[in-house]
């Protein structure tokens, strides 16, 4: 990718982004700030029920520097499609429509409408900030919750045993122009992907890693560190899929043991060494498969500076 893709309007440096009510160390607000910084002021947000909606502010307060439409929990995809249609019919085709949704809204209650707007290749950027559970209602499992994780509906003794749903593959199967993952620990990569998404037209899907200290039982100060560990351990690989066909890994990880990542968070505290070994095997298997796909399509390495 090309650094020149980044516009440098420094939009949010001027407009400010303060007064939100997110918890310390929340990934979502960091992500939104950087995404909006790239997309700029000609953007309209649609967001469903979830932490992003609540922490934007309670009426009459709002943090959003761009128009922000709250939608029903399962309605963000269709709502965004409606905003797109309305803007297009009123001569505002140049405005970016950003759907901004949690994993519950994306993987679960809103999956049908999400699939529909992807299949119609609506001209929308859809971002899923993935904090791997229903956080706003107090940490219940979603189909994005990884196996072995504690949540209030998968308590100890009944930890989630099913694997996380592979939403990226599902989205790529719609043959949409762009699918990508990105992390707040790799901001250059993240911003370039947002810029690339902005330059494309049609349906673009980004899944962003979104640490949640209260839900993950992690130290707020560790959010970026554990986001980095998630990438380095291949729990959350960074990649792109273009037109559902061309896969490319964005970053070659150092392959740190998954245990190092898992041990940063209380939600994994019930895992035995055997469990961790199993997760290591599954992670290796998934990563090797991903690598084989991307090798087949031509590897393009980007260098991300260590901080």
């Amino acid at each position: 990718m090309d650094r020149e893709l980044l516009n440098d309007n420094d939009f949010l440096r001027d407009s400010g982004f303060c007064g939100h009510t997110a918890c310390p160390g929340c990934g979502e607000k960091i992500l939104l700030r950087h995404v909006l910084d790239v997309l700029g002021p000609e953007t309209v947000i649609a967001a469903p029920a979830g932490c992003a909606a609540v922490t934007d502010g309670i009426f009459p307060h709002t943090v959003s520097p761009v128009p922000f439409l709250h939608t029903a929990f399962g309605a963000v995809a269709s709502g965004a499609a409606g905003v797109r249609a309305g803007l297009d019919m009123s001569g505002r085709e140049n405005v970016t429509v950003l759907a901004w949704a949690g994993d519950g809204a994306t993987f679960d209650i809103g999956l049908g409408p999400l699939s529909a707007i992807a299949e119609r290749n609506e001209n929308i950027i859809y971002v899923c900030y993935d904090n791997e559970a229903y956080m706003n209602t107090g940490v219940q499992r979603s189909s994005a919750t990884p196996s072995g994780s504690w949540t209030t509906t998968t308590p100890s003794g009944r930890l989630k045993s099913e694997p996380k749903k592979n939403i990226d593959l599902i989205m790529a199967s719609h043959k949409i122009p762009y699918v990508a993952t990105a992390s707040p620990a790799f901001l250059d990569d993240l911003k370039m992907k947002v810029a690339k998404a902005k330059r494309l037209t049609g349906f673009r899907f980004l899944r962003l890693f979104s640490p949640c200290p209260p839900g993950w039982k992690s130290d707020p100060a560790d959010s970026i560190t554990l986001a980095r560990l998630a990438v380095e351990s291949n729990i959350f690989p960074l990649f792109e899929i273009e037109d559902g066909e061309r896969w490319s890994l964005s970053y070659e990880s150092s392959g740190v043991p998954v245990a190092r990542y898992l041990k940063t968070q209380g939600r994994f505290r019930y895992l035995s060494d055997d469990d961790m070994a199993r997760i290591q095997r599954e992670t290796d298997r998934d990563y090797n498969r991903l690598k084989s796909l991307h090798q087949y399509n031509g590897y393009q390495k980007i260098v991300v500076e260590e901080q």
Partner: protein
Amino acid sequence: MKRVISGNEAASLAVKLSRVQVISAYPITPQTTIAEKLSELCGSGELDAKFVKVESEHSAMATLIGASSTGVRTFTATSAQGLALMHELLFWASGARLPIVLVDVNRAMAAPWTIWCDQTDSLAQRDTGFLQFYCWSNQEILDSVICAFKIAEKLLLPCMVCYDGFYISHTHEAVEIPEQSDVDKFLPPRDAEYRLDTKDPRTFSGGTLPANFMEIRYKLQKAFEKAPDVINTTYGEFDKLFGRSYSAVEPYYTDDAEAVLLASGSAASTAFHAIRKMRQSGIKAGLLRLRQFRPFPEKELLSYLKPNIKYGVLDRDLSPGTGGVIAQEIRAILNRNNVRIDINEFIAGLGGRDITVDNVTEILLKVRDDKGDKLQINWVGLKN
């Protein structure tokens, strides 16, 4: 120009004449031919609108909420199961004060499955904050949909235009199709005071605490209280341009009547013909046709309801555990206004059971000869 068209075609032509900009709908019998006709009109370019082909009715309403928030004119149509699937979003539409117009082609709710008519589907949405109108002819459908946009946009309230599945939706009648230039005079483009606008960024429908929510609901109620005036003014303007007039309640042969039936939709037109025949044989029967259900036309009804006349209410719907929805609403306004009139409640025509001229005649005679035993619900044409 007069054309012989179906009820669903009348609704579709009204959407075209109203220059709707975003349409979103999902097929369901008996609404389907609206979705097809509008697809055709958008496809041919006769209607310059974007038709968003969604995967469900929940998404159809969600799409219109998004579109209407950008300030454009929006439309959807559905029936029964589809309307029920929209339920959550109907509240979002009214709470956000979006002038979305929805046609509901009345159909009974499953289980068991049926595609045939009753009005329980739309009446069950009475608390969602939609204006509700009920039509009895194809001309009235066309006129009501055009008026609905004007009324909805003036009040910032969403609006439902309802008519009976098959009995009206698929029946062909001669309909006067107004000139586009005349409709343009009546219905200018929507001028939204608030809309999603990057030049004036605002947040819509965000989280609200107890300190503000009640006032927002109070304003919604106030808009409904203002609605009768706005509706009447709109009908007046429509009458002036097109020579057809409407009101919330329409009386027929009520002045000297001994027994009057309250009915809506196609049952009202059957009742109208039954009453004309009864009049020929000297029976003093009358009809009050309920055209408007939300806001409930309290003032109009009270002006027609007289203690010396006996009333029957025909409900083509059922709220299990209480009875007919319209009968309940009428009792409520009578009690609220300390008016002592007994009404007889008739449940008829559920799931598309025909309501015949003979049924209506029997009902009206029963009402006329009633000796004061008002408590039971009368089931019309029930098999043993």
